[in-house]
C-alpha cells in the first residue's frame, strides 16, 4: 500500500515504513506552484489509479517529515511552505472576494434590460398594431420576432407602404439586439453562479439564486442571514404590514418564483418555502465559507418536494 503525499516542494509516493517510491519536484515560482497544485494533484491521483496503486483517500502524513526523507532540510520546507502558502492564500482570497458584486451588477443589468425591452416593445406593439391589429402575442419577445417575420398582408388595419413598414422594422431590430444582450447576460450569470455559489444555484437555479445574492447585497451577507429572512425576501411590504397591523406574516417572497413552489397547490407553498429557505441558508454559508458542492442539500430538497406531494394525494 502506498500513499500520495502533496507538499509545497513536490509530490511523493510513499510506501509503508516511510519509503519514498517516487518524487516529483514542483517547478516554478510560488505563485505558479500554488496555481497548478490542485490540477497536478488530480493528474497524480489518476496516474496512481491507472497503475493500480492502492492509494488512501486523505493523506495525513507530516509533509515536513516526508521531505526530510529525501534529505531536504526543515528550513527549506518551511520557507517553501510559507511562500507557497502565501501565494495560495492570495489566490483563494481573489477567488472569493468580488465575484458576488459582479452577480449583483449583472442582475441589475438584466432587470434594466427587461424594463427597457418592455417599454420599447410596448411602443412597437402600438405602432405595428395600427397596421395589423389582429396579430396578438402575450410575450413581448415573441411579438417582436413575429413582427419581423410578417409579410405585409390584408388586414382590417391601416394600409401602410414600405417606408412605413421599414421604419417599424428598424425599430424592432433594435429591440431584438437588446433581447440577445439579455440572453447573453443570463448565460453569464449562470456561469458566475456555478463558480461562486454552486450550492445556492443547485437549489434555486442561477437566476433566482443571483437575485437572492443581489437582494442581500453580497454572498457574505446572504450567508449570514437566517432562513426566516430569506423566506420573505422581496415581500418586505407584506412583512411590514404584518409587523404594524398584525395581519398574517407573508409565507414567501421571491423564492416563490421557484418552480417547485409556484406550481404547488396553495396550501403546500408555505411548507415548501420554509424548507427551501432553510436549505438556501445553509447553501449560502457553504458557498461563502468553503465553496464545496454538497449534493445532499439538493437531494434533501427533492425528497421534501416528493414527500409534500405524496401527503397531498393521501
Amino acid at each position, binding site marked *: 500500500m502506498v500513499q500520495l*503525499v*502533496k*507538499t*509545497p516542494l513536490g509530490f511523493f509516493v510513499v510506501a509503508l515504513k516511510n519509503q519514498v517510491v517516487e518524487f516529483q519536484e514542483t517547478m516554478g515560482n510560488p505563485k505558479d506552484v500554488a496555481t497548478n497544485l490542485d490540477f497536478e494533484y488530480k493528474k497524480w491521483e489518476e496516474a496512481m489509479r491507472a497503475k493500480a496503486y492502492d492509494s488512501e483517500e*486523505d*493523506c*495525513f*502524513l*507530516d*509533509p*515536513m*517529515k516526508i521531505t526530510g526523507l529525501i534529505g531536504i532540510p*526543515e528550513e527549506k*520546507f*518551511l520557507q517553501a*511552505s*510559507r511562500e*507557497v*502558502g*502565501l501565494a*495560495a*492564500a*492570495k489566490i*483563494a*482570497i481573489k477567488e*472569493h*472576494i468580488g465575484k458576488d458584486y459582479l452577480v449583483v451588477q449583472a442582475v441589475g443589468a438584466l432587470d434594466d434590460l427587461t424594463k427597457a425591452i418592455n417599454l420599447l416593445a410596448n411602443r412597437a406593439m402600438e405602432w405595428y398594431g395600427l397596421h395589423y391589429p389582429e396579430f396578438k402575442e402575450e410575450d413581448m419577445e415573441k411579438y417582436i420576432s413575429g413582427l419581423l417575420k410578417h409579410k405585409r398582408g390584408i388586414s382590417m388595419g391601416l394600409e401602410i407602404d414600405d417606408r412605413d413598414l421599414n421604419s417599424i422594422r428598424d425599430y424592432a431590430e433594435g429591440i431584438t439586439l437588446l433581447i440577445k444582450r439579455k440572453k447573453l447576460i443570463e448565460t453569464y450569470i449562470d456561469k458566475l453562479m456555478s463558480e461562486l455559489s454552486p450550492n445556492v444555484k443547485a437549489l434555486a437555479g442561477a437566476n433566482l439564486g443571483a437575485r437572492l445574492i443581489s437582494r442581500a447585497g453580497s454572498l*457574505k451577507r446572504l450567508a449570514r442571514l437566517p432562513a426566516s429572512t430569506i423566506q420573505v425576501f422581496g415581500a418586505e411590504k407584506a412583512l411590514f404590514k404584518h409587523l404594524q397591523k398584525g395581519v398574517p406574516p407573508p409565507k414567501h417572497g421571491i423564492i416563490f418564483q421557484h418552480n417547485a413552489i409556484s406550481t404547488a397547490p396553495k396550501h403546500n407553498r408555505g411548507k415548501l418555502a420554509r424548507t427551501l429557505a432553510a436549505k438556501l441558508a445553509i447553501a449560502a454559508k457553504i458557498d461563502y*465559507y*468553503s465553496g464545496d458542492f454538497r449534493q445532499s442539500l439538493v437531494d434533501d430538497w427533492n425528497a421534501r418536494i416528493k414527500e409534500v406531494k405524496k401527503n397531498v394525494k393521501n
Partner: protein
Amino acid sequence: MMIKLGRNFATKNLVPGKSVYGESLAKRKGGEFRSWDPKRSKVAAAMMKGMKIPLKENQMVLYLGVATGTTASHLSDLLTKGMLFGVDFAPRVLREFILLSEVRRNLVPIMADASKPQKYRWLVPNVDFMFQDVAQPNQAQILVRNAKIFLNKGGHIFVAVKSRSIDVTKKPGDVFKVFKKEIKEAGFTILDEKRLEPFEKDHLALLLKWK
C-alpha cells in the same frame, strides 16, 4: 522576549517601528516592545489572569481562527526561530492576516475551514502548540480532529471558549463543564483554566496538554 509594560504584557517587536492593530510601542532595554492588549487578545487576557503560556521561541504553531492576526502578531514576536500557521475561513479577515504575513517572516496564512484539516495538511508540519479561537458550536470536535493530526505528543493547546457561541440558552458554567468533559474524554489534560472577566464576558480560557 516578553516584559511588563505598565500593567500589560509586551512582546519585543519583530518588525520595529510597526504597530499592528494600534497597540502602543515603547523603547526599552533590549529593543522596541509592543503592548499586548488584553481587551483585544484572549491570550493576553488569560495571562493577565495568571495563566502561563509555555511557548518557546523555536516552536511550530497552528492557530485555528487566526482572524486578522491580532493575537498571532504577538506570538510571531515570540517565535523568533519558529513558524506559525494561521487558519481562518473568512476572506475579509484573512486578507489582513496575509498582509501581516508578508512583513513577518514566521507567519503562514491559510484560508480554509478548520473542520477540514485535510485541506491544509500539505502545508503544515506537526506542531508543538495549537491555539484555537473559533467561537463555534462544534469547536471541541474541531480541536480534537486537528490535535490528532498535527499536535506532537506532549504538545500544548490554548483554547478560548465562548459560552454564547456554543449554547445561548445554557448558563456559561454549564456550557464550560460540558466542554471540559468532552475535551478530557478525548485525551487532553487540563493544565490550567481561567475565566476571562473583566476582559471578556462569559469566556473561558483553557491550557491543555495532549497525552
